[in-house]
């Protein structure tokens, strides 16, 4: 059995003392004020109100964003309906596809600017927005564009028809990517869209609106209305929409599911998670440790499928824990615009408060806290990467979604115990399994009740790969062939 004293001690100070490597913000053209994107034009809100969007890394104001009220939502839905009836429905599928291809290409052309804005507005490390969010968003449009004229192959023995107008509400953790996940399949299947981005992170969605104009997308095919929860509620409850696609918390998802009861609106819900990441003694331990780190600290842990519950087999617990602590010490926390930064800013003050509250709860419940010894910037919203040990199944930090860089570690002895503990949650979005034994992987992956299972890897995404949850993590899939199903009548 491996012993922890064999661990090679890493020199932490050298990793911390890298010279600054900041990405330039000069490429980002951010207007002082953004209006609502309705019927192909930017329009002033009838609310006459605007709200600030700030950079969570510096707390500086970036821009003012229009607040859409009921009348604005109505205008957007009417525009989407008109575009559906008069233009989009009648357009041959292969021509529809060309617009979506165009959008993908322009996103690629403007990738650098979009990445910088995404990081400024949301606080995520530039290396993530540059290497993941923006390319993945472009790829989602490209992938779905190709489906537009091939839908009859996706639904054997059926003639799939679009639903009409889709109302889409997206979260603040992957702003442009979530917009792509929602808009691309909706357009490819022939629907029109009213999209509401999260109020903290509207900028890249509004840049996307400019891209729609540049791509000459017919007016009204996609409308983007900005605002907070009230705007979202107006959209959900608008009688003119045929479909709601929502990504966000389970709490809000349930409210949406209830509020569309008795209507003919269809829904796709991609909700919260509390994923188990399970490490067996025969796992490739170093790779597993990287997988644990990536699983919980990717995007500051603002990930619905984050591997926030770690289950380690008892025989390797000490070793894994030591390696984890060592690795956490090497993580670079700070300025998201620095290309070396691993963990950027928490998306908002509000979310930082939520996370800090869970840090308190975890300790009150009797768990042991370990945090990186790194220093945090004076301004902005930051949280040290954190792990909890001595965690019980009943603890709130093991049951509730924290949505931050906080890992709850538990141990197990047998496979059955691992499965039982992993499945003992109301959620079922994702899970991770680490072992070098193939038959054990398939045993685990078939028994874990979750929609996405990563074996010997974690937090991988692809436009061809369906994503979505079991149980209270929502229903419907996004991505791949299965992602088309939420936007058609068969």
């Amino acid at each position, binding site marked *: 059995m491996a012993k922890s004293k064999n661990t090679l001690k890493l020199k932490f100070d050298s990793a911390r003392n890298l010279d600054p490597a900041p990405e330039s913000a000069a490429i980002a053209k951010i207007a002082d004020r953004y209006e609502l994107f309705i019927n192909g034009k930017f329009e002033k809100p009838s609310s006459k109100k605007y709200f600030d969007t700030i950079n969570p890394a510096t707390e500086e104001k970036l821009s003012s964003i229009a607040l859409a009220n009921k009348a604005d939502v109505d205008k957007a839905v009417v525009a989407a309906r008109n575009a559906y009836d008069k233009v989009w429905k009648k357009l041959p599928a292969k021509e529809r596809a060309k617009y979506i291809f165009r959008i993908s290409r322009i996103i690629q052309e403007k990738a650098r600017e979009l990445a910088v804005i995404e990081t400024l507005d949301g606080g995520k490390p530039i290396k993530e927005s540059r290497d993941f969010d923006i390319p993945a968003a472009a*790829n989602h449009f490209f992938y779905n564009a190709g489906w537009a004229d091939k839908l009859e192959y996706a639904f*054997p*023995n*059926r003639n799939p028809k679009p639903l009409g107008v889709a109302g889409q509400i997206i979260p603040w953790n992957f702003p442009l990517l979530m917009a792509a996940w929602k808009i691309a399949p909706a357009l490819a299947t022939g629907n029109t869209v009213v999209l509401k981005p999260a109020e903290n992170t509207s900028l890249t969605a509004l840049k996307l609106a400019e891209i729609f104009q540049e791509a000459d997308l017919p007016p009204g095919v996609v409308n983007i209305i900005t605002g907070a929860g009230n705007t979202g509620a107006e959209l959900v409850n608008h009688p003119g929409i045929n479909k709601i696609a929502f990504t966000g918390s*389970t709490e809000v*998802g*349930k*409210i949406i*599911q*209830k509020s*569309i*009861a*008795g209507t003919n609106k269809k829904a796709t*819900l991609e*909700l919260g998670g509390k994923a188990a990441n399970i490490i067996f003694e025969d796992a490739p331990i170093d790779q597993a440790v990287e997988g644990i780190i990536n699983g919980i600290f990717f995007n500051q842990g603002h990930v619905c499928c984050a591997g926030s519950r770690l289950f380690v087999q008892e025989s390797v617990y000490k070793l894994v824990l030591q390696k984890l602590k060592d690795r956490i010490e090497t993580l670079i926390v700070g300025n998201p615009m620095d290309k070396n930064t691993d963990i950027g800013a928490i998306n908002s003050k509000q979310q930082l408060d939520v996370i800090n509250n869970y840090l308190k709860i975890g300790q009150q419940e009797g768990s042991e806290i370990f945090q990186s010894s790194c220093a945090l910037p004076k301004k902005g919203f930051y949280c040290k990467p954190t792990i909890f040990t001595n965690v019980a199944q009943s603890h709130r930090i093991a049951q509730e979604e924290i949505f931050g860089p906080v890992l709850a570690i538990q141990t197990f002895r047998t496979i059955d115990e691992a499965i039982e503990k992993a499945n003992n949650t*109301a959620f079922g979005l994702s899970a991770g399994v680490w072992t070098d034994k193939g038959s054990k*992987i398939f045993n685990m*992956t*078939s028994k874990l009740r*979750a*929609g*996405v*299972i*990563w*074996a*010997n*890897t974690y937090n*991988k995404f*692809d436009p*061809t*790969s*369906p*994503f*979505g949850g*079991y*149980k*209270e*993590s*929502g*229903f419907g*899939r996004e991505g*791949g*062939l*299965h992602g088309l199903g939420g936007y058609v009548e*068969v």
Partner: protein
Amino acid sequence: MSTRINVLKTYKIYINGQFPRTESGRTYEIKNPKGEVAANVCLSSRKDFRDAEVAARTAFGGWSTRAAFNRGQILYRIAEMLEGRKLQFVEELMLHGSKKLQAENEVELAIDRLIYYSGWCDKYQQIFSSVNPVASSHFNFSALEPMGVVSIIAPQQNALIGLVSLMAPVIAGGNTCVILASETKPLSAVTFAEVLNSSDLPGGVVNILTGKVSELLPHFSNHMDVNAVCFAEDNANDIKLIQENAALNVKRTAFYKNKNWMSEEAQSPYFINDFQEVKTTWHPIENIGGSKSGY
């Protein structure tokens, strides 16, 4: 003429492979077309539903991991048993007001539909699954898994074919279920439970209750350990109630508003797919594209 007195049947409910009476001790009368009492049927309670749900949850692990081929054989066995008891079902449907020819058609179609879904048990997976060509060096596939426990409110009309049409795709896909039989025409449902019970179907996979829709619908839809609800009437209030209750634990719902269960369109693998989850699995591939050996 014989003076033999007929033995009358007690119509009980079906939970966990057994035929208990309702724990509530209540019954309601079912009358034949002449207005005579044909049977006293159990008026099931919330507690009966909860017992049935526990039975269904307990049976789910075993049923969902049965070989698909084996599930197909069991569905076929149900059809065989039904074929052998055709006459009894025809009589019961006639007690509920069907004409003889109608009743015969319905029973025969029910048998054929079971065989239809028997065949699908080990085939729908290949129709709806996929291997996904991801850009990174991973092997990635999406396969179907059953949702879990499904509560089914059987159609009021066409009591036998309606029940079979909803039940068969649900269990063919590896789910377990609790079914509320047609309130006004429950007799064939209870007799069908006897068919199930002699078909190698494990106890608890299908549980059948009789009683009032208005009383049981809230429980069928608000139970926190039910994964999906299936409803086939076109009643806006009932649908709204189910949808609202479903939101308590993000239940999946399927509505088949007044579908003609005697028609060909009332059977397809899409009915199975309605009660399936899609699970996507990733695994790295070592050195993809970089290897010099192989081709």
